[in-house]
């Protein structure tokens, strides 16, 4: 398999398909996991999804978004067309969730279901078409964050897995693991404050923002440890340097896509992220 030398947009999906076929051969002998957890979404033929879904999970401050930006540039320079997804990015309800969060008046089940609407809207109307065209989809968080957040608020794990059984199973799921204290430092440095929801303020854990954040993130982390076993996450030390984390991600993704070239230096535009 020769690595894609052509980096024009048109060649992107072409390479994506070739890379994928190499994967299929590799996966055929090992495991033949279905592309969906349970019943597929109505009207979807898993066979026609030739692209790859790559998920990066991790709390705020784990370096997730930075890594997604770098990976996008790397993949595009390798000639792969990339589509991204994330939380609250659906056209259907993305803004409505923003409004609900701002009001703080929403109850846990409603919020959980609005998030699942948001996710499935993106999946059905944007991500599945992209995967049919052989694109690489980079997900900046996925169902796992949604399951963890709802689970720590007392919604049953099996209930949540039941809702998301129609979701697409990622080809790779990375978990950028950082200690809550480190996440706190990074987030505070970035925005000079800590978000209401990221510190679980709706859960009355502590009146002290720091304590609340640490307790909440520790609960989330425990859920992720459970999810990591259940869904075979690729755990990466998110406290390592950006370049080191990025190299680990590239190695895994390159092997998944069947490309040899993992060399990458960020362009001028992204150089500031490389520390």
């Amino acid at each position: 398999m020769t690595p894609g030398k052509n980096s024009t947009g048109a060649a992107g999906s072409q390479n994506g398909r070739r890379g994928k076929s190499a994967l299929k051969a590799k996966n055929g002998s090992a495991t033949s996991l279905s592309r969906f957890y349970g019943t597929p979404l109505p009207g979807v033929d898993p066979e026609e999804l030739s692209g790859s879904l790559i998920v990066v999970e991790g709390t705020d401050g784990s370096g997730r978004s930075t890594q997604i930006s770098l990976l996008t540039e790397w993949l595009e320079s390798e000639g792969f067309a990339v589509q991204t997804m994330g939380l609250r990015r659906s056209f259907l309800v993305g803004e409505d969730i923003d409004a609900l969060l701002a009001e703080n008046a929403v109850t846990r089940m409603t919020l959980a279901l609005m998030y699942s609407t948001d996710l499935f809207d993106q999946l059905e109307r944007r991500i599945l078409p992209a995967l049919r065209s052989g694109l690489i989809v980079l997900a900046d968080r996925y169902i796992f964050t949604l399951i963890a957040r709802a689970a720590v608020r007392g919604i049953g794990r099996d209930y949540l897995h039941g809702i998301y059984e129609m979701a697409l199973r990622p080809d790779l799921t990375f978990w950028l693991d950082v200690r809550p204290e480190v996440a706190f430092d990074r987030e505070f440095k970035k925005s000079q404050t800590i978000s209401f929801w990221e510190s679980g303020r709706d859960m009355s854990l502590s009146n002290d923002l720091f304590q609340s954040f640490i307790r909440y993130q520790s609960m989330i982390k425990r859920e992720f440890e459970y999810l990591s076993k259940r869904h075979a996450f690729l755990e990466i030390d998110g406290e390592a340097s950006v370049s080191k984390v990025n190299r680990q991600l590239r190695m895994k993704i390159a092997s998944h896509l069947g490309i040899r070239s993992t060399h990458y230096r960020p362009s001028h535009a992204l150089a500031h992220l490389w520390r």
Partner: protein
Amino acid sequence: MKIGLGTIRMATITPDITAAVQPAQQQTAPAKREFPGALVVVEGIDGSGKSTQLYLLKRWLEIGGYRIHFTEWNSSPLVKSATRRGKQRRMLTPTTFSLLHAADFADRCERQILPLLHGGYLVLADRYIYTAFARDAARGCSPHWLRNLYSFAPIPDITFYFRAPLDVAVNRITAGRPKLKYYEAGMDVGLSLDRAESFRIFQGRILNNYDQMIETDRFVLMDGTMRVNRLQKVMRTLLADRVDLTRFAPKKKK
């Protein structure tokens, strides 16, 4: 089944003989929980007469001074803008249609129905989770998935199922309405290009799905073709038989 003290069974799904519907997961929800309140539900296809009958029941209880609250399907302001946008632009799939309605229902459930049941109210619901089971399954959602989705909802003390023949119900709707809406007519399912025809087929599917639940979900069958006042009398008698109404009656002054 006589209900003494407003026993609400949380999310216990009666096993379905048709196999498609399986018991939902019971991890956090307790199998049984007692509320001082009671939940009365009407279900049935459009034009079956259920809303008229529930309205009359509500008036009867209101006039009598009972502690009641009326709630209807799809009425939460919280997700209204999303639902409207989705419907106007026809961007809802069976899955997102179902999830959005579930979010709406969850909001009503957590902020109205459950607190009112805890507070000792007689809650009257025009349509409930069975509407989603019947309608969303007619759109192609998995019945098993739907059962799980709504497993957080308290089970009603009594569910009146208003049943009218398809022709009667459909005629009642189409006669009074100049144009059926896109999703209302089930146009998204692709049953027919003709809106009236699509509505008919869609309602027929929903009716079948309702009929499947009569046994499994203990529906009280109501003949939607009976005269309105006679049917109302039956409804009041059945309600008083099933639910101890004295608990919601106005307190006598000393």
